[in-house]
């Protein structure tokens, strides 16, 4: 028997100033059965929603008016005023060059989806966020999902937990 995802149990927040892009994501989520989908155009509106409603997943465009998606992510992960530091954030952006990916990763992005995207890519990011949650790492310089995706057997000492 195959494992399934019941999207009706999950609430989404789309933060995207581009009407068509937001609509595509909305339509896809609605088709998957999600009934609680909010759409806003700016991070400030997103914070208002996050403070008043229970949101499970944020899908955010990088390029936004005012505060951009990266600053939004920074506040979500690192600010004491953050409504939820652990919330999964999928960054959806046409800034697909490697430097953008690593910048987003180092600020605690959960998943990165480069535009132009297709349905398969969006679905795989949703599955990853919902069915394969990652542990969080908190250091002096980073707070976010574990950036080590591949679990490779390592014979040396575990410097994270054993260093003295």
């Amino acid at each position, binding site marked *: *028997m*195959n*494992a*399934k*995802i*019941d*999207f*009706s*149990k*999950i609430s989404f927040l789309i933060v995207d100033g*581009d*009407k*068509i*892009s937001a*609509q*595509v994501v909305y*339509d*896809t989520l609605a*088709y*998957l*059965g999600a009934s609680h989908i909010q759409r806003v155009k700016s991070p400030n509106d997103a914070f208002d929603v996050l403070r008043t409603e229970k949101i*499970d*997943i944020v899908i955010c465009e990088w*390029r936004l008016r005012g505060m951009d998606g990266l600053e939004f992510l920074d506040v979500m992960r690192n600010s004491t005023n953050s409504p939820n530091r*652990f919330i*999964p954030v999928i960054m959806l*952006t*046409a800034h697909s060059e490697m430097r953008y990916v690593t910048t987003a990763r180092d600020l605690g992005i959960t998943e990165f989806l480069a*535009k*132009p*995207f*297709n*349905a*398969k890519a*969006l*679905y795989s990011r949703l*599955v990853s*966020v*919902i*069915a394969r*949650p*990652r*542990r*969080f*790492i*908190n*250091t*002096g310089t980073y707070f976010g999902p*574990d950036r080590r995706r591949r679990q490779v057997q390592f014979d040396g000492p575990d*410097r*994270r*937990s054993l*260093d*003295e």
Partner: protein
Amino acid sequence: MTHYDWGSGAIVKPEEPKKKKNVQIIPAQTDLKRKAVNFIKGFDINLSPEQLEELEQVVQRSSETFVRDIGKDLMECRKLVINALRDKPKRPEAIIAANDLAYSVKALGGTFQYPLMTQIAKSMEIFVADRTTANEKQLLVIQLHIDSLYVILAGRVTGFGSTVEQATVAALTKLTERYAEPRE
């Protein structure tokens, strides 16, 4: 303890104990998984090719909106660029509009089977990046990009086009390189 090593004749200092790294590992939050993953209701984690095809059709529903809205944006941006050619103070506004348009088209063209538009928009985005204004020749380069995008959209040229379209992309890229400077 610091001591004298008789063998080497050196004063040996003990190694400083390494400071413990302050790293906290927080177990994965499994609330979402617990409430949404099941074996009865919903979509398979691994979608079949047929299901993926259906999902892709949902994405393509917005294709007509894309053609209509981007067509309108292209015309508006073209007007701004033409006005900016005649009127210097209007140039910063035209550059902002061109930058926004380039990003939108680059982001969505490929999603709606117009990867050629994404290619041209990318060339235009690189050209207008970090500019606050442009000279006449640079505005004409932007206008050529807009015109090319419009022709592709009007002709519904999906995919990467033929050799003619690819030659156009190459020519536009050369133009952007040739007129890249000054960047102000």
